[in-house]
């Protein structure tokens, strides 16, 4: 059974159709990259996967480990092992980062029938992850994402991912706009997660992050569809040559879109 199976997915925001028939299968152990120009629908796809209710699915289905993902609440998806690193993480004034993450970790552990982490165990886990990601411990005392720079927010997403230990991680432009240190932290975080029983979907505009975590398959989205899939060389080609050639091919019907 595939980990994630998206079949003919159509979705709209208000009356505007944005996803126009996405087909995508992700197996355990695989790393997929999704690339594509601004507005092509990458974040929409990610948001539909995470259960954001601004979107209406009009056609198609999504199976996660054989279960109907669209039938699950956002928290059920998270507990089942789906993690989304958001392109624009929300600020939560007054919510302490450690308190929040401990509640999340224990909600997920409860679902898995694992023991609840007490404060000591949790701090041990958290410190270990911070170290790997080269993040300072002051993060723990801060309010979630409040007053964080763009890079800090992205690092915090990866830190949450590392603690929550998902089976499917979707990273929506976690690498965009990062300085070199933050990129390294994110790169390490993602590399650490790569394993035979997990899958990772990396949405990105750039090759940089893919140098850390080599994708098995690269997809290109255009106007709500995946117009091409290939191996890692496709990402390199897009990095070097841009999208014009592919748009031209799509327009002239060389690609069945």
């Amino acid at each position, binding site marked *: 059974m595939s980990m994630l199976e998206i079949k003919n997915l159509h979705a709209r925001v208000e009356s505007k159709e944005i996803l126009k028939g996405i087909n995508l299968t992700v197996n355990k152990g695989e790393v997929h990259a999704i690339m594509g120009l601004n507005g092509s629908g990458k974040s929409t796809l990610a948001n539909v996967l*995470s*259960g*954001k*209710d601004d979107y209406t699915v009009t056609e198609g289905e999504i199976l996660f480990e054989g279960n109907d993902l669209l039938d699950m*609440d*956002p*928290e059920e*998806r*998270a*507990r089942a092992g789906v993690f*989304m690193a*958001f392109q624009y*993480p*929300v600020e*939560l*004034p*007054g*919510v302490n980062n450690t*308190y*929040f*993450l401990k*509640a*999340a*970790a224990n*909600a*997920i552990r409860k*679902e898995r029938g694992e023991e609840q982490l007490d404060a000591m165990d949790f701090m041990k886990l958290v410190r270990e992850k911070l170290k790997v990601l080269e993040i300072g411990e002051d993060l723990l005392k801060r*309010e979630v994402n409040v007053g964080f720079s763009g890079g800090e927010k992205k690092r915090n997403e990866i830190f*949450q991912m590392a603690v*929550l230990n998902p089976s499917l991680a979707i990273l929506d432009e976690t690498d965009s706009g990062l300085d070199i240190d933050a990129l390294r932290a994110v790169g390490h975080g993602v590399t650490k997660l790569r394993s035979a029983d997990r899958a990772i979907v990396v949405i990105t505009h750039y090759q940089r992050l893919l140098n850390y975590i080599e994708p098995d398959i690269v997809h290109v989205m255009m106007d709500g569809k995946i117009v091409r899939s290939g191996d890692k060389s496709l990402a390199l080609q897009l990095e070097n040559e841009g999208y014009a050639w592919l748009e031209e091919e799509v327009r002239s019907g060389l690609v069945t879109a």
Partner: protein
Amino acid sequence: MTHISQQNDTASYSSAFNAFLPDRVTEPQWLNSIRRDAFSLFQTEGFPSRNNEEWRFTPLNQVKETGYSRPEPVEHPSLEAIESLTGYSKTGPQLVFINGVYAPELSRNAIQTKGVQIGSISELLQSNDEILQPHLAQLASQTATPFVSLHNSFMEDGAAVILDANTQLSEPVTILYVTHSEQPIFMVPHTLVVAGRSSHASVVEVFASTMGANYFSIPVTEFAIGENSDIRHVRLNMEASNAAHISYTHAEIQRDAIFASHNVCLGGELTRNDFYAGLRGENIHCTLNGVYLGSGKQIIDNHTSIDHAMPHCESHELYKGILDGESQGVFNGKIFVRLDAQKTDAKQTSQVVLLSDLARVNSKPQLEIFADDVKCTHGATIGQISKEALFYLRSRGLSKTDAMAMLIQAFVADVIVRIPISELADDLNAMLPELLERK
């Protein structure tokens, strides 16, 4: 039992008053005359009418129409039953009142710090009424509402905390006003805090009930705060869900003093709190904060009034409300800055989160500024829990209920953390999710 008839609102208290007066023949003369004056004032003024701007959003039908009677002696609940009402663990002195009457066997006030008196007003009136005489039932009446008059008419017991100059209490004084009655009774518990020069204490008043009856609580709390003293106050309203609670808190504050009052409103069908702080000297720091949780048909109405009479004083007000169901909140914040009160720094903030479409709030700042060199700011916001924030938490595995509770905790966090008694602040914070769920 002195029942109050339903048809007539103030006249109905007359028979209760006339029946009560003979019980008071042995009380000090000064108090007896205050009492008589208060009742005749109450009779003249009557209950506030709906046309009275100050009472526009406070429906008084329940209070006028229920036949509340004076409490009769009851068997007291156990200490465990009383402690469990409030949740948080309290150490230090504790005065317990059942239906407004002192319960010595449930109280702990043996700690005798030199120069500090903590006791019941009823006992002090017998043993040492001179220390009450300068203040008791005389501070709040300066700015009285009809309910203060009604209170003073029937006042006979409550807590007194008297601090001589330079005394300090290391632990907070807890005052528990517990209603234990199936009958619709009215009670007038009184708290008097007299803080001598450079003294320091924290006082917590808790209003709670062992049963869910409709009763009427009319408390008055008076503070005479001396020069350079530091007095912290928490009032925690956990009244029964059918109860009416109309309170008045009055503070007279002298120069260089710190007064911080934290008003936590959780219970009651109708709650109306008036706070008055008179800043009578220079360099006073006065804080009036509040947090309120409404649900069902609850009405929670807070009126504050800060009177800046002298220069170089600071006042801070931060009120936060969470309203669910068909509940209604009111925040009315008056700030007077008199001609002499130059360099006043006054800040007032009112923030409300509405959890339902039917919940309502009226937030009204009223600034009257006569001095010209002052800094006064006020801001009021009304909002909802952010959908984005809720989704973000759920996307990390938290249930909708837990996510909501976490965001609400976060919203009130800055009011709760300022509560100077950390056990109480921690417990309130921990209690919030449960309180919200129960609502």
